[in-house]
């Protein structure tokens, strides 16, 4: 038995990824859950709009963190503040209404509770998700999560299978251009993930009544850019994995933080900056901003352009780097030194 135990420890010691999971993952989970898992909302960003906005803003409890005072603004201006995500709540001084952004579920719930605690001072109106349905908030995030799974895990598995089965070297010597192989390998996963995205969006609408308030084209473009990022991650993972087990292990390191730190479950604004900054490095964070913004709030490019730009930069860096690495793997010393090779036709 001891021989077996010693053999197992030796193998584990040399399997750095498994050791990484054994040691790194518990620490990661502890830190994330310890610091990030906070459903509590300490304050809510608030716009005060209408006549006497200055005075009313000064009387608000500390929970309502005033980010904008607009004495000349209209109800439309207040709604735009919420659509463009400049504030989570807006107070209309004229008719004493409190508009709440229902697409930020926990923030909205806390805001409604705080308003009720303050008596009948304001009529509360929840926009974009009037019944504060959890599914309405989760589905836009799940669309991104499903694309992340397919793009990162399934793609890396498909690519690593070529290496594991020894067919990558077969492809490398066939009369394909590197780009043929790369596009040919990745396009099916792109299409499948895109179809999945469409299916989940339609099902979310049919089963849970999730609205689609914004532009389909804008959403489709955002999904495509996001998909390039996660596909790029999948390709990168495949280039550093020798077999499918390693690919799954590595993919978990990329996927887990996205589930926990993208704002899909725990509000980003509730996380301390020590953890929150990780969330801002994750592509799912920005896709959720896009999907929630377009589906629920009907937001346009004008209010989501930052998310689009960040995702586009990520796509160029991650997908570009992945293609270069894959190309290197496909043709390791690819006909790079023709001086020593006499190739005749």
């Amino acid at each position: 038995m001891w021989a077996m135990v010693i053999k197992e420890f030796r193998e584990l010691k040399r399997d750095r990824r498994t050791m990484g999971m054994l040691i790194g993952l518990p620490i990661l989970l502890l830190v994330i859950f310890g610091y990030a898992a906070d459903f509590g909302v300490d304050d809510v960003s608030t716009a005060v709009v209408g006549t006497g906005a200055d005075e009313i803003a000064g009387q608000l409890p500390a929970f309502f963190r005033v980010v904008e005072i607009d004495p000349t603004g209209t109800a439309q201006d207040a709604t735009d503040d919420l659509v463009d995500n400049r504030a989570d709540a807006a107070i209309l001084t004229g008719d004493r209404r409190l508009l709440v952004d229902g697409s930020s579920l926990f923030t909205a719930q806390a805001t409604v509770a705080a308003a009720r605690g303050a008596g009948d001072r304001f009529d509360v109106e929840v926009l974009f998700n009037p019944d504060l349905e959890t599914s309405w908030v989760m589905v836009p995030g799940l669309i991104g999560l499903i694309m992340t799974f397919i793009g990162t895990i399934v793609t890396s598995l498909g690519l690593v299978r070529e290496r594991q089965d020894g067919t990558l070297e077969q492809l490398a010597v066939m009369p394909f251009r590197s780009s043929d192989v790369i596009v040919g390998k990745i396009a099916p996963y792109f299409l499948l993930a895109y179809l999945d995205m469409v299916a989940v969006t339609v099902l979310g609408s049919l089963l849970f009544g999730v609205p689609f308030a914004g532009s389909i084209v804008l959403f489709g473009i955002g999904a495509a850019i996001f998909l390039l990022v996660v596909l790029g991650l999948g390709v990168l993972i495949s280039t550093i994995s020798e077999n499918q087990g390693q690919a799954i292990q590595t993919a978990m390191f990329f996927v887990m933080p996205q589930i926990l730190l993208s704002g899909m479950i725990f509000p980003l604004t509730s996380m301390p900056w020590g953890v929150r900054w990780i969330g801002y490095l994750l592509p799912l964070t920005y896709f959720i901003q896009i999907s929630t913004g377009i589906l629920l709030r009907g937001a346009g490019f004008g209010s989501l352009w930052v998310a689009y730009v960040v995702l586009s930069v990520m796509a160029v860096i991650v997908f570009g780097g992945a293609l270069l690495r894959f190309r290197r793997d496909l043709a390791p010393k690819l006909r790079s030194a023709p001086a020593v090779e006499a190739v005749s036709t």
Partner: protein
Amino acid sequence: MSAGARSVSVALGGSEVLHHVDLDAPAGSVTAVVGGDGAGKSTLLRCLVGELTPSAGEIRRPDRALIGYMPATSGSWRQLTVDENVAFVGRAFGMSAESIEQRRTALLRRAGLSTAADRLAGALSGGMRQKLGFVMAVIHEPELLVLDEPSTGVDPVSRVELWRLISEAAIGGAAVVMTTSYLDEAERARSISVLDGGRVIAAGTRGEIIGSFPGSIAAPDRATVQERSWRRGGAVREWHPHGSTADGSLGPGDIEFEDAVIAHLLAARAASRRTAGT
């Protein structure tokens, strides 16, 4: 066309795994590369097909579209059927659907795979998968056919058929280069290169290899020097380095190819030890 390598060296991971290797693979003939594990056989083949670029030397080969390659893993896609594997390779090499169908039917029949045409490659036995790999490598009638251990795991009867197919490819004009661990197979090739430690230690026809090892081979009743002796069936063979006298030395007609290859290997290693000692 003639394919081959001239003074090719390859460095992988900081160490040289091929040292100034020469190989000539004329059209219409089979050239066998033999050697033990880690001798550099597969590395040489990967250079020939263009998967690796040598650090020095020259490779002669036709355009990629005229090369057929069967890696040691057979190179088949496990989740595709036999038919689909062959068709994919045919399409990759630009063959028409009609040509693919004709060649596929003929080759699968010759390889004894007709009845397995709809089976997944991953569900085939090791030998059947090797034969599928061969069919995939020759579907487009390449000018240079490179086969890495094509007969490993193939049953003896199927191996005979596989050799027939290899010979036909050569008769059809292809330059065939193959590695093998079976010396009885290598003997059938027109020319043979013996690799050891990344160096060619013997090359030529079967007769040239038998006639060119230094020293002599004896057939004593029992081994006198363990590290230079080996068994052939019930008999003992012993290599005596050049210059030593050996009673009962075998004449050229009595020396088998395998004995000659072993003598070449022992001579090369003895020379290597002498060089290291000086």
